[in-house]
Each structure stands twice: as C-alpha cells, then as structure tokens.
C-alpha cells in the first residue's frame, strides 16, 4: 500500500493528465445519474405539484409516505430492482441486469421521492400564495400545475439538485444492479469502493476529488442562479 502523499500525487497526475480510464468512469457516472434525475424530475415534479394542489381522501397519508421514502436505503432499492431484473424475476426478459439502464432505474427509484416531496413543498407554498388569484381568474385544481411549476422553477431546481447529490453519491444500489463491471457499469462511487479495497488509493482519491468538485460546482451554480433570480425579482 502506498503512502498518502504518493496516493495524492498519483491522484493529481491522473486528473491533470486526463487519464482516459478515470474520465470514462466520470462520464458514465454523470450519464447514469443525470439521466436518472431527469426522469425523476419529469415524473416527480408534476406528481409533487399534484399532491400540493389536490385534495382527496388519503392525501395526508400519501404525503407522509413520500416524505418517508426520501430516506430509502440504497441497498434495499438495489436489492428490489435486482429481484425484478434477475433471471428469476418478472422483468428478466428485458435482460437489463448489470447494465447502465438497470443502474438508472435504481437511481430513479431513489431520487423520485426526494424530487416529489421537495416539489410538493415548493408548489404548496406557491399555491397558498396564488390560490385566490387563480380562483378569481377561473383557474383551479390541476389546471394550476403548469403555472405553479414555472413560478417555482428556482425552488424546483434545488429539488433536482438534491436529487443529483443523492444519485451521484450513492453506491449500494448501483453496485448491486450494475455489478461494477469495468468499462460497462463502473461508476465513481463503485470504483472508489473497489480501488480502496485493492489498495489503489491514487485512483480512489482522484475520483473522490472529482466527485467533490462536481458536487461543489453544481451547488455553486445553483446558488448563483438562485441569487440572480432573487436579485432580478423572479424568485
């Protein structure tokens, strides 16, 4: 096992030299996680908005359940998707196990409750603010959803950001359904786990640095967007 300074030196050289292996892993991670967040956003934001504006029996219980699912353990999601996609599972015919698609499915399930729950909060606040005005204009219920989603666009971006953070940093679900196959399903988190266990701390550290840099960059961009929107009075 190499020392920390050697590992750090190697990590820096891997990053700066544009190591093909490292950057292909980063690219796959981004592809899987961003696709999952995009799908979760398309499904979760309208669903969250629907929960915010509609009134029906069991709505309170459904909101509690969606909120609770935000803390869903990734390994449990991974196991569930594995059981569905495995040779004896109901979706075996699709042959998706150990593919990036399986990883996307698992991450969608992890991110969806986060996006839906946070979207509901954002839209519900706006709905309280605009309810009488919309009613006065003759718009009520689900017809208000497209407008409310647009009015809450900056708050909803924060919901998506939380989803990106959850997806890109999780290891359990993608490890189980992806199998951590080199050049096929190996992403940043699973590689860090593997390389650390092998003692190749240089690669693990390099990916760790990239992971943190990505997380900070996304947060900084969102913070900038939120501040700009507030300054321009659009938020």
């Amino acid at each position, binding site marked *: 096992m190499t020392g920390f300074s050697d590992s750090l030196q190697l990590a820096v050289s891997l990053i700066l030299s544009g190591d093909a292996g490292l950057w292909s892993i980063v690219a796959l991670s981004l592809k899987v996680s961003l696709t999952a967040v995009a799908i979760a956003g398309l499904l979760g934001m309208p669903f969250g908005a629907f929960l915010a504006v509609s009134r029906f029996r069991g709505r309170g219980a459904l909101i509690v359940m969606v909120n609770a699912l935000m803390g869903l353990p990734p390994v449990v999601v991974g196991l569930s998707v594995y059981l569905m996609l495995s040779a004896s599972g109901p979706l075996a015919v699709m042959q998706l196990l150990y593919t990036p698609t399986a990883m996307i499915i698992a991450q969608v399930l992890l991110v969806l409750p986060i996006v839906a729950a946070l979207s509901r909060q954002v839209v519900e606040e706006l709905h309280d*603010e*605009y309810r*009488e*005005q919309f*009613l*006065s*204009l*003759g*718009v009520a219920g689900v017809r208000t959803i497209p*407008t409310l989603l647009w*009015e809450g666009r900056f708050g909803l971006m924060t919901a998506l950001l939380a989803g990106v953070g959850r997806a890109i940093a999780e290891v359990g679900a993608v490890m189980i359904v992806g199998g951590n196959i080199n050049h096929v399903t190996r992403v940043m988190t699973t590689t860090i786990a593997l390389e650390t266990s092998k003692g190749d701390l240089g690669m693990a550290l390099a990916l760790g640095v990239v992971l943190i840099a990505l997380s900070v960059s996304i947060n900084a961009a969102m913070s900038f967007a939120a501040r700009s929107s507030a300054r*321009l*009075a*659009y*938020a």
Partner: protein
Amino acid sequence: MRDIGHEILAQSLSKLMPLRTQLPSLQLAAVRYRASNQVQIDVPKFEITGRGISVLVGPNGAGKSLFIRLLHGLISPQAGQINYDGQPVANGGRRAQAMVFQKPVLLRRSVVANLKFALKFSDTPKAEIEDKIAALLELSGLSDKATQAARSLSGGEEQCLALACALARAPKMLFLDEPTSSLDPNATQRIEAILHQAAMLGVRIVMVSHSMDQTKRLADEVLFMANGKIHDRLAVETFFDGPISIAAHSFLSGRLVP
C-alpha cells in the same frame, strides 16, 4: 409611473371593454358564513345591481374582507345563496367578475407576461391580445417598464399592474379589498382615476376602504358593516351627514363600535 390624464385613461379603458348597457346583478339570500364556530357573516338579504361604486366601510374585524370574498365566490357560505345574474357565483358566475387584493398578487415574471397571463383566461381573441396589452400598459402607466420583473416594481406600480390584470378580463363587476391601503397619494390618485373611469363604462365596483376621504371621493353608496352584518346602506352624502345605525354613528365619531 407616468402621470396621464383622465381622457387617456378613458381611451385606454374603452379599448379594453365596451360601454356596458346590460348591468350585472348579484343577489344574496340568507347568507351565513361561520369560521371557528363563530358566525362571521350574517346577511339575510342583499342585492347589488345597476351602476356605480359601493364602498364597504367598518371597523377592523367587521368581516368586510370575508364578505367581499363571499361576493366573488372565493369562499362559500355554509348557508344561503349567492347568485350572479341568476347562477351561483362560485359556479360560473365568477367569470364576469374580477378582484384586486390588498397585497398585489403577481407572477414571478415580467410586467407584460403578467398581463398576458390574465388575458389568457379571458375570452380575448388572439388577434386582439397585443392591442389589449398596449392599452393595459398605458392604463397602468407601465409602458416603459413592460419587460421589467413585476415584483421589482414599487408598491404603487404593483397595485396598478394588479388592477390592469383584473381589468384585462373586462369584468362586469370588480371587487377590490383595500387596494390603496399602503400606497402613496400619487399611486392612490391613479388607482382612483382608473376606478372612476371603469365605473363610467358601466363596471360595477364594490370595494373595501378604511379611508373616509377616499370613500367620499369615490363612493356612490356606502355599505357600513360591523360584526358581520350590514347595518347601513346609504348614498354617500346621506351616510356622512348622518348614518342610521348606532354602530355607524360610533364609527364615524371615532368611538368603539358596539
């Protein structure tokens, strides 16, 4: 906000709505509204019809804002009926009405986008939208701020925009809940001028006000409300010369309303 004369306001308004010949009618029968197990509004019989501006006055907590929301169908009474031109106000009757709130409710968009949104839910033909937007911008004095974020406007400008959004629907009946309570005299003057011109075109106006000076300037009739009941309904001169109810006397003389 640019200062423009009454004639220009009248011209802008006439591009937005025709002179009303058929006047609306709003009837209330045995209306009771309760909240927290207390009767907040109790109006056995009431009708608004014809032309003009009715100003609803009364002490804080009298139920004025609740009453105006009932009239517009934003809330429903537990008992009684509110009909607009023969149909329940909350069930289609509201289409011919509009409301301006005490605190302007504007979308997080530009001035012009707010006007477009209001027009989207009116029956305005697409070909007329641009002309109407130009007229509404002129009416509100915001022609030079059309692309500015609505929520970056001053309080007076925001309320003028909110009023323009309400008038975009070319309502037959317009409700306003203390629209000038936090505005400076300049903005108040503009709002009042717009309301005066709208009333001349036949828009029936019902508004809540705490300003007796404003009531004298605008009202054709005064509705005095206390404890959820309408105690007086009088022509403005008669009301200020000597109201009928003891509650209104107390209110006008600055004493506690019984």
